């Protein structure tokens, strides 16, 4: 009997967690006021979690662009179509790689830091102290971080794609000696603003919201111990990564 109950428990726990996470989101959104203090807190978090992730995003973007060009040129050369490299790089970057890789990097760099920070605040009773001061920690701590994540990821994805194009330029034109005019014209005519760029931005927005929500929720619901915070941080990366890839497939099926 007990075994059956624990098996049912194991099955229902993820559903319960998902429901609680959704309620947490609604509780956060109920506190959106667009007041000066709130906007200031969001901007501060955009700097802390967004701007501070720039370096890693730019470095990774640059090398992803280079490796993408290298693989594309190798494959396209077999069909005598190596001048199409910018088209392939551009489309795959703006549609898929830019939003997905940026979100995965953001989950690893900023998502973990948000979970650990909030979890530690809980373990050191700072959230309790806030509640006792009649300050809602969900509004004060979680909301600015969530909004900052939603704002930052699309901007970072744009930066990632721009740096990847730079990497592609350096490799394809600088190293492989492709014609610069053909490279840019193929990119300009083959990559569509609405379908490729804006579509990718929508994805980034959803990924940013997903990662930030998971990060703040796991931090807020972490067990107030060292091990609890560690587990919550790991869960943030694992669940964010899985959900990013699932949502990517779902959104791609609707956007294309």
């Amino acid at each position, binding site marked *: 009997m007990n075994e059956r109950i624990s098996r049912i428990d194991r099955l229902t726990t993820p559903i319960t967690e998902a429901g609680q996470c959704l309620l947490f989101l609604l509780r956060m959104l109920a506190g959106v006021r667009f007041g000066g*203090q709130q906007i200031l807190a969001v901007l501060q978090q955009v700097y802390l979690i967004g701007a501070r992730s720039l370096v890693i995003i730019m470095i990774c973007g640059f090398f992803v662009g280079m490796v993408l060009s290298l693989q594309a040129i190798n494959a396209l050369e077999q069909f005598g179509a190596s001048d199409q490299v910018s088209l392939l790089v551009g489309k795959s970057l703006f549609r898929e790689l830019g939003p997905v890789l940026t979100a995965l990097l953001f989950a690893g760099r900023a998502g973990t830091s948000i979970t650990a920070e909030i979890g530690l*605040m809980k373990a*050191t*009773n*700072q959230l*309790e*102290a*806030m*509640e*006792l*001061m*009649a*300050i*809602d920690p969900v509004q004060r701590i979680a909301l600015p971080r969530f909004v900052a994540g939603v704002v930052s990821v699309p901007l970072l994805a744009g930066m990632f794609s721009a740096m990847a194009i730079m990497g592609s330029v350096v490799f394809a034109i600088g190293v492989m000696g492709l014609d610069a005019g053909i490279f840019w014209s193929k990119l300009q005519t083959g990559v569509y603003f609405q379908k490729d760029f804006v579509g990718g931005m929508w994805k980034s927005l959803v990924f940013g919201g997903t990662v930030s929500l998971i990060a703040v929720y796991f931090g807020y619901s972490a067990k107030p111990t060292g091990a609890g915070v560690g587990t919550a941080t790991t869960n943030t990366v694992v669940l964010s990564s899985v959900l990013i890839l699932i949502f990517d497939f779902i959104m791609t099926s609707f956007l294309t």
Partner: protein
Amino acid sequence: MPSSDSQFAQSDTPVIKIRDLVFRRGDRTILDGVNIDIPRGSIVAFMGPSGAGKTTILRLISGQLRPDAGTIEVNGHRVSAMSRRELHRFRRNIGVLLQDGALFTDLTVFENIATPVREHTDLPESLVRRLVMSKLSAVGLGGIEERMPHELSGGMARRVAFARAVVLDPDIMLYDEPMTGLDPIAVSTIRTLMRETNDALGQTSIVVTHNVSQVRRFADYCYIIASAKIVGEGPPQQLTDSTEPSVDQFMNGKVEGPIPFHYQPPGAAWGLLD
């Protein structure tokens, strides 16, 4: 110095009135049929062995926990019946000093103390500054406003947390083991601050503590909680002289007595005898 027993008894309607309070965690009964009256202007100490439910009472009074049975009234309002919004309004009038201070680690000392002021008032920045500086100076820490919490000693951090708790001059102060882990000078400082602030602002204070020797010097009245019940109450001196076995055991730190040393979970058999 604490006021006398007669002063305590003659006080008007209690600010905090607890009746038939029952609180359980799972199968374990933490508090069972507890009745407490706390008059305005007094400092009341809750003492008892670890895990007896002292901090639980503070959490029930502040509305962080809800009782399984019984009522808690603060200034005539039932805490357990309050909505989230009402609780927020209610807590603006309460100051809490947690055991470890719980300072916000990413804010300076100044910002820590200014947080409740900015959150609950529309005071101009110049007044916020003056208020924060006056509280810092009152706890004897003028000049450290730009320091971060990790740059403070344990005693300093506790005093900063004290300044933050009283910055809006609350009517009721809740202290959770405010003197634990501090050196004797810091203990005396916190004790004096509690007494002086309580008397100067006409507050009502509840202090959870293990420190029997200090209680005599700041509390007007004490409750000893053990085995989920109030086993003794009265002015500190009266409790010290008490011959009631539970009170005598706790006040004099005796191992043998009615308060058990071994923790026994409900329904558990003695592992050694299995």
